């Protein structure tokens, strides 16, 4: 691949410049990954900024011409877990988030709550959530997601599959219905919206 060869020999400021130019284009994706991972805009931007700083500091360990998006996502992910270890216990099922969410939903005064999918995502175990985000939204192949998460491809596949089933189950159970909506309406809502969206996508 000659394009790779062109940049891989660069050093010093010229290399930094090439690195930075590509890194800048990844910022929106890092923010999106952080947002969907944490479910919180402020926390997400802190996380994404930390990841950006780390990526810059580690720029010499990155080989230009290889997949910078996957590399930065891995940095962000590692940062997320190290933050989480510090503040929370890392459990399979995020029980606290689940309880907070359910409480918020039960509260009729609850202001414009997160939409149903966000809520469903929030109660997924973190590793299922990240797998679903990477493969289902981030555009990564299973192999790439496995590299990012540091696990086997089969593990990613099974996490994605379990995450999908869980999200669907949560939505269908109507656990997040509010304002007297009938059970299962969350799913109906998503179906309707997806239909509307798919009309405008691609």
């Amino acid at each position: 691949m000659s394009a790779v060869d062109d940049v891989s020999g660069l050093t010093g400021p010229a290399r930094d410049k090439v690195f930075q130019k590509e890194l800048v284009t990844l910022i929106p994706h890092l923010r999106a990954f952080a947002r969907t991972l944490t479910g919180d805009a402020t926390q997400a931007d802190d996380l994404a900024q930390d990841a950006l700083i780390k990526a810059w500091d580690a720029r010499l360990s990155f080989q230009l011409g290889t997949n910078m998006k996957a590399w930065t996502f891995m940095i962000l992910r590692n940062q997320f877990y190290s933050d989480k270890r510090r503040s929370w216990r890392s459990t399979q099922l995020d029980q606290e988030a689940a309880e907070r969410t359910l409480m918020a939903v039960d509260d009729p005064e609850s202001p414009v709550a997160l939409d149903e999918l966000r809520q469903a995502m929030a109660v997924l175990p973190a590793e299922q959530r990240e797998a679903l985000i990477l493969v289902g939204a981030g555009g990564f192949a299973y192999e790439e997601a496995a590299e990012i998460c540091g696990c086997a491809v089969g593990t990613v596949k099974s996490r994605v599959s379990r995450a999908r089933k869980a999200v669907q189950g949560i939505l269908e159970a109507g656990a997040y219905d509010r304002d007297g909506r009938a059970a299962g309406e969350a799913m109906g809502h998503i179906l309707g919206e997806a239909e509307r969206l798919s009309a405008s996508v691609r």
Partner: protein
Amino acid sequence: MMGVGKVPFIGNRKGHTALKRDRTTKYGEEVRPRADGMIDQQQNSAGQRPAEGLDEARLRQRAIGVKLRQMFDEVVNEPVPDEFLEILRRADGGQSGER
């Protein structure tokens, strides 16, 4: 350096082509929305052409997939807050010292 040394190097591993930049991805789904608002079937692996009466569960999975991407893309399409660019401006100034 805040432990970045622990970040494994993921490019250029022998025998690995998975991280090539131009790899196509499929969101791991078997289907994608079509522009006409219908749902198109697209197999990941050689599979049977889906029946006309679409499996309800699959339809729902697809809907979730579309919604998930929308959720992600919403953020991607937001303007980047200036703090992000500021980080790189500062980093660049401190590092290269030129320009």
